[in-house]
């Protein structure tokens, strides 16, 4: 992930940041020099990578959101292999998706979910990291349905 952020331009990263009581996978400084939309994410973003085969559940989202709140950041990026639970729900948000929406509405914190399909799109240069971040951000912020 560090490579994707660095090569996207406008980001600086620190990996495996150890605090006194936890470890942060990635702390990203958002200089927002390339895309003004990225200012929405705040100066600092936390990134957590969940390299597990299962979908990310609501508990993981809540734990990560509390980390983001604790460090006074506005945005957390949660990377998983296959997405998050409740992602394909077409009627109403539930599970991890509901947890993301609650984090936004109650704490003004956005958890942006990325999965390996998104990463592959960046690697194959079909989309930029900034495009995907903004697209996923809007999906959570406005509770958009999958089109």
């Amino acid at each position: 992930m560090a490579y994707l952020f660095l090569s996207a331009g406008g980001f600086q990263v620190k990996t495996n940041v150890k605090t006194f009581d936890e470890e942060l996978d990635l702390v990203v400084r958002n200089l927002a020099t390339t895309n003004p939309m990225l200012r929405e994410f705040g100066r600092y973003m936390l990134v957590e990578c969940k390299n597990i085969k299962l979908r990310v559940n609501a508990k993981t989202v809540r734990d990560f959101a509390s980390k983001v709140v604790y460090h006074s950041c506005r945005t957390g990026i949660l990377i998983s292999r296959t997405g998050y639970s409740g992602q394909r729900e077409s009627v109403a948000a539930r599970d991890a998706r509901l947890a993301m929406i609650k984090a936004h509405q109650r704490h003004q914190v956005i958890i942006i979910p990325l999965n390996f399909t998104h990463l592959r799109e960046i690697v194959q240069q079909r989309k930029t990291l900034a495009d995907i971040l903004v697209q996923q951000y809007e999906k959570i912020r406005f509770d958009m349905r999958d089109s």
Partner: protein
Amino acid sequence: MELKEPNCKYEQGSWSEWVHLYINATNEGELNALLARINLQWLQIWTQGLLDEFQLHFEPRLQTLTPDSPEWKLIVDQKWNQIGIILAQLGAFKWARLLYHLEYSILCRIQSSKGRVHKGTPLHQIGWVELVEGTRESLLRSKYFMKLALIEDCLTVGNEYKNLPAFRVLRAEHHLAEPVLANLAKGTKKWLRSYDEQFDHTRPELIYLDIVRDSGNSEESDYFHLDPDIAKHLLSRVEHAGT
């Protein structure tokens, strides 16, 4: 000097004939004689064609040559370089960059069969083109590619990297202090001791990533080039490490 290729199938005096004579030149004298009569107008019109011919002829040739043999050096250090320099002097920075990126990607591909080869020349030349272009963005890119060239130099000649051009350009043109560059060299040596995958040793980008990602230094991460091969490699490594 006789410049006519035996059994040459190209029209005499044509651009195609010149290109193939250039590709097949066997020594520096022959090369210089050809460069003295290069048609700059044709070069600018047919640049993509020239790049295609370079790839078509040089890649298989380099695959069969021993790295650092006289013919290898003539191709890598002279034949590619001279055309790139001319393009940059004409202000065709985009084409000069493309030419050196192509040379770099060919050398990277060759490594899969030959093991690591020195790629400092194209990296230095990309950095040089960016330096000559002289815009704010291109200067950032220049510094990045010069640093990669310095890492390549460290991998190839060890402590002698200070005698090679990348070090001098980073010192004189990018005003980087010697301890900063010594840190790059130190990071390269540390990397060599800690990683054993072959791909990791053959790509300076991975070494630079390792040095930069934890430095937290704003100056260090001004520009980072997205290389699809590197990104693919890193992603597949993560995919295989999953639980």
